[in-house]
């Protein structure tokens, strides 16, 4: 093979190169032809044409649903309409009655069942005074500890070092 622009060669070299390249060409072609048999080429041909047909087939137009669909149930069964109407009327009456009972002066108020059971509507908890001094608060704490459960906390109190003891050391 003579490549344009390639360095010049002697005629014998050119001839042997041509033979060499012919050999290489033959081997390369044979290499591919062994795997691409006639059967494979026929299958390939069929696949290509089928794929082309699939790709170029115009898309199917899917019809939209009927513009006036059939109405089920209620139209066919008149009795159901009466039931639905009665339910709606009951709901409206209930809502209106609730509003009236709430807005009228001296109307019914919801009373907690616990208050009714205790017989008193007054709250049982007393408000905590926010004006209590620190000394009063600590005093009340000591009283509470000594009166309820103080004995249970006594071992823990014994283990805890006191401030004045540390200061003395």
């Amino acid at each position, binding site marked *: *093979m*003579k*490549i*344009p*622009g*390639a360095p010049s060669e002697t005629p014998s070299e050119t001839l*042997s*190169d*041509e033979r*060499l*390249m*012919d*050999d*290489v*060409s*033959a*081997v*390369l*072609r*044979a*290499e*591919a*032809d*062994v*795997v*691409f*048999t006639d*059967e*494979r*080429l026929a299958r*390939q*041909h069929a*696949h*290509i*044409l089928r*794929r*082309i*047909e699939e*790709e*170029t087939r115009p898309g199917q137009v899917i019809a939209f649903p009927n513009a006036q669909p059939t109405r089920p149930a209620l139209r066919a069964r008149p009795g159901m309409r009466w039931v639905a109407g009665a339910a709606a009327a009951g709901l409206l009456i209930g809502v209106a009655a609730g509003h009236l009972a709430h807005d009228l002066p001296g109307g019914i108020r919801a009373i907690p069942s616990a208050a009714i059971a205790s017989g008193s509507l007054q709250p049982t908890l007393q408000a905590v005074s926010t004006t209590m001094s620190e000394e009063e608060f600590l005093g009340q704490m000591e009283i509470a500890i000594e009166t309820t459960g103080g004995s249970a906390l006594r071992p823990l109190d014994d283990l805890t070092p006191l401030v004045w003891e540390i200061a003395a050391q």
Partner: protein
Amino acid sequence: MPRTTSQRSIAPVTSAASAHAAPQPGITLSADSAVAADVKALVVAGKRDAARERFALLVTNLQRRAGRIAYQYLRDVQDADEAVQDAFVKVFTHITSYREELPFEVWFTRILVNRCLDLQKARARRLRWIVPTPSGSDGIPYEPVAPQPTPEHRLLASERGRVIMAAVQELPDRQRKVFTLCQIADQSTSEVSQALGLSEATVRVHLFRAMRKLRTLLVHER
């Protein structure tokens, strides 16, 4: 033997629609280019069934050569088969963008080579994450073995054939691709440069180096 200029003559144009596409000066179009122009004209006219029938002829004419090119790129018959199919389908679906004044083979080869490169990349990604299974274990049946060895089998089985195949595989990637297109696809350096998107001078350099290396590797085997 690769050609350095386009030598094939144009076949009689069979449809009036393709007659208005004049080839570029200095380029002689092939019979396949004329068929491709016919297919384009039929598609443009909305005659898709007739276009498919005409395109079938083009597939018949080119598929063996396409298989050789794809196999040299991919070295796997399944991948090469896929690349050839994809290339033909793409050509048909984009036939309206084919320029009739240019050789159809160059356009087709470029599409085929690009598809081969895409498949090479996809295969590299696949192999990075998946351990390849031995051939035949993935449900793909083995190709039936011909009972009698064909001339191609005998050539490849010969000592000379094995040496040549080994020598070609030793070529650097770019040189091997250029050499393969020139030798197998029977394309000129100009056509190969268009198909690969390289300058013609680069193609000549690669081709020259490939031949020099092959000569060095094979000269002692003569």
